[in-house]
């Protein structure tokens, strides 16, 4: 607990640093309302998925298929729109399909007892492939303004992007779920010692299944946000985003071995990561370099606890 608090303070400092340096490097655009709006809009998609994924990783599982579910939901949105469906009907269908994708992962992991790493590497390919099957390589961009405004304009009178508002609501929901309910307590117990959880009467499989379904549904929701933000439905939307999401979760202090972590830490990490990304991009550095930095951050966030642990254990 104490070390987690320290981790979060370090993140807060890092966040301030990113904002200050980022503003300096970008000549202050970063601190303008418009700049903040852009940063917020860019990071919202990744941050949304990080919320349920936090619970999955706390339960000592992983889901690498999230970005592909995002792509599939975007493609499905485009395909159904092309079919002439109204968006009011498309959106729930897309979210249900996302939940189904999660349910397939959850079924394979809990009912067949397969390792989630292997399952979701497989479904990463499968769902992305299905996205292309659904929409091919076309782009659907003729969504009505009344909807795309959700992604492109701020809440009236402020510079707050709607997706960030959505994220804030879900952050509270997932924060309470993980930290204040019996469900969350069970998730921690499962991640720290699955066998002991089972021996305490906790329904391990059901809980894990629910976590995968939630992750699929939220990833699909993120796909909708992504599509509206860029007003473009494509099968390859969000390719590789799983890296950023996993990085945010681990940078947020969640242990890759399960059993430890907070939603608060992940929120901070998502802000740091989002700010950093935008600072670098505003500074005209290629997006691939941003990926490089993300990768380094990921390595640092798993390596730092490993090193500090070994030092504090003081191997004789």
């Amino acid at each position: 607990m104490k070390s987690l608090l320290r981790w979060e303070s370090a993140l807060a400092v890092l966040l301030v640093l990113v904002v200050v340096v980022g503003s300096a490097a970008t000549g202050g655009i970063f601190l303008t309302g418009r700049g903040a709006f852009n940063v917020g809009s860019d990071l919202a998609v990744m941050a949304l998925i990080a919320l349920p994924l936090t619970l999955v990783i706390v339960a000592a599982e992983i889901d690498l298929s999230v970005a592909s579910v995002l792509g599939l939901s975007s493609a499905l949105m485009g395909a159904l729109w092309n079919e002439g469906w109204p968006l009011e009907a498309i959106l729930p269908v897309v979210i249900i399909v996302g939940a189904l994708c999660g349910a397939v992962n959850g079924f394979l992991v809990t009912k067949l007892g397969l390792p989630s790493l292997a399952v979701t590497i497989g479904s990463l390919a499968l769902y992305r492939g299905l996205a292309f099957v659904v929409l091919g390589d076309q782009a659907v961009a003729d969504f009505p303004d009344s909807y795309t405004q959700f992604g492109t304009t701020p809440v009236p009178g402020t510079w707050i992007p709607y997706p960030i508002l959505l994220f804030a609501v879900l952050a509270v929901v997932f924060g309470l779920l993980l930290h204040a309910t019996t469900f969350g307590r069970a998730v921690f117990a499962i991640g720290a010692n699955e066998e002991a959880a089972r021996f305490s009467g906790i329904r391990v499989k059901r809980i894990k299944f629910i976590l995968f379904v939630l992750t699929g549904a939220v990833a699909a929701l993120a796909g909708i946000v992504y599509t509206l933000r860029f007003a473009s439905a494509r099968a390859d939307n969000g390719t590789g985003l799983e890296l950023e999401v996993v990085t945010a979760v681990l940078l947020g202090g969640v242990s890759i071995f399960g059993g430890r972590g907070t939603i608060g830490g992940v929120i901070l990490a998502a802000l740091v990561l989002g700010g950093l990304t935008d600072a670098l991009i505003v500074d005209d550095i290629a997006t691939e370099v941003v990926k490089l930095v993300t990768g380094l951050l990921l390595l640092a966030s798993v390596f730092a606890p490993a090193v500090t642990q070994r030092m504090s254990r003081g191997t004789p």
Partner: protein
Amino acid sequence: MAVTAIRELGILIALAVVVAVTTIVNPLFLSGQGIRDLLLNACLVALLTVGQTMVVITRNVDLSVGSVLGLSAFVTADTFAVNPVLAVVVGIVVGALCGLFNGALVGLGKVPSLVVTLGTLSVFRGLDFMWAHGRQINAANLPDGFLALGSGSVLGIPYLVIITLIVLGIVALHLGSYRSGRELYAIGSNPEAAVLAGIPVGRRVFTTFLLSGTIAGLAGVLAVARYGTVDATVGNGLELQVISAVVVGGVAIFGGSGTVAGAALGALLLSTIGSALEVVHIAQFWQQAITGALLIGAIALDRSVALRVAARMRRQSRGVSA
């Protein structure tokens, strides 16, 4: 032993079915040139599966192989202007360095390989982009002799296939018949017991990643020879095909069992399915979905077979001693 042989037979049958069906649609599929194309297409992935198999046997995974291949390919292509021999060496060394980095973090730093190689997947790709800086290198910039390596053959067998088979043979021999190879199986089968048996687990895992990187470096060099055109996206996403091939080829994702021959057959099957889709005019889009489905199907199959075998043995062991 028997179980893996059955698996390899299964893949061969699947392969035969795919080829047969496709040949009915288009007889050219099975011509001499057709077969050569099939083998050539499978080569790079098959080569990568050789390194990946070693990694997976130790209960680890190397997601960075596609990026290592890409980085090595670009650096190799770029170095040709200086000296062709140097270029080949540099390409392999780049791969080895990447593998060294992965291996140091996983084997010596004791950080889970999934996270490490997910991180280095983008780090190495990022380096590739920084190095390339938007450039593309074309066949025109490369010596013909080198390009012949990618397309030429001896006695009708492409050089690429020969090189892949040589690497495969060496690693198969190592895994099957040398102590250090057998110890990799022990590590993946029961890591704690491996430590107790006095096996230098950290060092072995380190070496395994080093080899996987080196092989990916070699694959990068060969990718330049094969395609002639190189930009910073070469090998993007290849890790999915490689891991699928390994798992489809019967290497247990929990570690401890599997062969490089099986994994290479897995690669051949996957790439043949890809080619077959093209021939029967099914959109290429399906290939990725099929790859994923096959991967999931393979681990599910392995799992249910393992469970059934375990249940049978449980019954027998009690029956014998009672």
